């Protein structure tokens, strides 16, 4: 029994940290730009594919893929923000959402054209490919690695936002655009920068997903983006702290749900999302501005 619960917890933790990696970029972009980015799932997918291509062409070196793959996606993110998204910030919400949704449609099909519509099996990571015994049952080493990476990314983000000059400017720009602009901060530049950085986080999540989910499929971003939405909403749209906690909750909930209530696993996730929105629309850590 103990063994079973520990393993369900570990699976939940790794799942949660995995969602957090994707949701962090989404949350950062929403917090600063105020745009809920559907295309984030597409960036995640592109991250996975680019990592795969890079690692495959550089002699199956996973780490090189992880370093260089997301950089390509950053270029895509720059293109999207600079030439499209920038022109809809002043428009109503549906237009912003649908613009990012248009990119989902485009990137999904582009991936099919470039990499083929079928799924691609992924290589294992040297040293992290096996399993370790925990309480007498095997647990994938790579999942443990993900559990470790999640908090590292969180710590890095926190340090970047709280402890650096750029972080202060970003926080100022997000809390009051006009004031920040008046103070001389170049808001459009900051927005582009944050969008590209958020894109990088999403693509990094995709890169790390390559060995984790095992298969690359066009449309792999869609399942993830909804989970990331749920997490971002539960934590409070725009709050990184909340997204981290939300990811943990959703990871554990879905892990326990799959184990004990398989029929209502998905239902539980969304009912939690609805309850949080109704009870505390600003989420656990969001600002109570509404």
């Amino acid at each position, binding site marked *: 029994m103990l063994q079973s619960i520990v393993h369900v917890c570990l699976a939940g933790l790794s799942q949660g940290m995995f969602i957090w990696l994707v949701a962090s970029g989404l949350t950062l972009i929403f917090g600063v730009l105020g745009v809920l980015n559907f295309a984030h799932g597409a960036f995640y997918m592109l991250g996975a594919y680019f990592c795969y291509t890079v690692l495959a062409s550089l002699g199956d070196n996973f780490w090189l893929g992880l370093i260089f793959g997301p950089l390509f996606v950053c270029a895509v993110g720059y293109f999207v923000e600079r030439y499209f998204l920038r022109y809809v910030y002043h428009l109503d919400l*549906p237009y912003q959402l649908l613009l990012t949704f248009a990119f989902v449609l485009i990137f999904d099909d582009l991936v099919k054209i470039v990499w083929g519509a079928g799924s691609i099996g992924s290589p294992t990571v040297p040293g992290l490919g096996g399993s370790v015994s925990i309480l007498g049952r095997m647990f994938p080493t790579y999942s443990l690695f993900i559990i470790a990476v999640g908090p590292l990314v969180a710590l890095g983000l926190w340090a970047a936002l709280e402890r650096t000059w750029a972080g202060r400017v970003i926080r100022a720009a997000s809390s009051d655009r006009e004031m920040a602009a008046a103070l001389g901060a170049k808001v459009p530049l900051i927005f582009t920068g944050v969008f590209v950085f958020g894109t990088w986080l999403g693509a990094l999540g995709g890169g790390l997903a390559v060995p984790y989910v095992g298969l690359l499929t066009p449309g792999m971003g869609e399942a993830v983006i909804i989970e990331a939405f749920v997490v971002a909403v539960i934590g409070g749209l725009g709050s990184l702290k909340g997204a981290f906690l939300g990811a943990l909750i959703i990871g554990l909930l879905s892990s326990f749900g799959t184990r004990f209530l398989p029929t209502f696993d998905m239902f539980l996730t969304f*009912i939690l999302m609805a309850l949080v929105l109704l009870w505390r629309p600003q989420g656990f850590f969001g600002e109570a501005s509404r």
Partner: protein
Amino acid sequence: MNSKGTHAIYLAIILGLAVLGLVADRFVLYMGMRVMLLAIFAMGYNLLLGRTGLLSFGHGALYATGAYGMALVNLHLTPDPLLGILAGVALATACSLIVGFFCVRHTEIYFAMLTLAFGMMIFSLIWNLRELTGGDDGLVGISRGSVLGLPIAKDGQFYFLVLFFFALTLWLIHRLRGSAFGLILAGIRENNQRTSFAGIPVKSYRLAAFVISGVFAGLAGSLGAMLESNTDPFSAHWSHSAEPILVSLIGGLQTFSGPLVGSVIFVVLREIIQRFTQNWMLWFGVILLAIIMGMRGGVMGGLEKRLKRGPAPAGKGEGS
């Protein structure tokens, strides 16, 4: 355009569609029905999006409740198509009331996310309650029976049932847009707070708009189930809600005819693009992008502007 002229145009469209039903081959009939079903779905949906300014990702699920309600009655109780449609619409209405009751407490992104959550709850139930819904296979073997003694088993016959409901929808939505209620919805879109200070219980009106659009989604769903003779669990997925959004955008959010014109363009264009390439989604992405970046009035909005030869007020369609 004056009101008599508008009426004449729509009458001509319906008569034209009726003639088409008598002469066209099966493929054209099928396409015609797909257009009409999508138009029913989208015209109802646009009452919420274009008129009231609320973006819902839950209407795919409401469409599905219509389809499943219809299918369940058809498979287990009676093959009578009208009773089946009634059941589908009733189930969709009930679901819209429950979902809407919670969702209209919020607006903007919070409303959108709530509708997403509730829609996905419905999707997960359809997906997982296999004994009732057939899970990922959906419900199959829906029969069409006969309406008032007239058989509708063949597409050429069923077409006229769809046409009837399409014409009914056209008329109802037209009346709704021109009514006091329709004006109040536009007021809510323009200025939520001011509408409340005009003495209007805003939440009740938002709920009414949500339920009405849900009714039409349910109607489209139950007719769709009959057309395909099965139900598709993926129609409940949030991404299916993108269809009426896309259609309304293409045609023009602020016009009455927008969702209708958009449906024609959407169905026909998809058919054409699919002939040449597997990747029709790519092209729709590009079209969507172009509309948002360049012509937010949509096709009909742009046309209207041109006819008036001047800056048309953005919030007004040819409503009357």
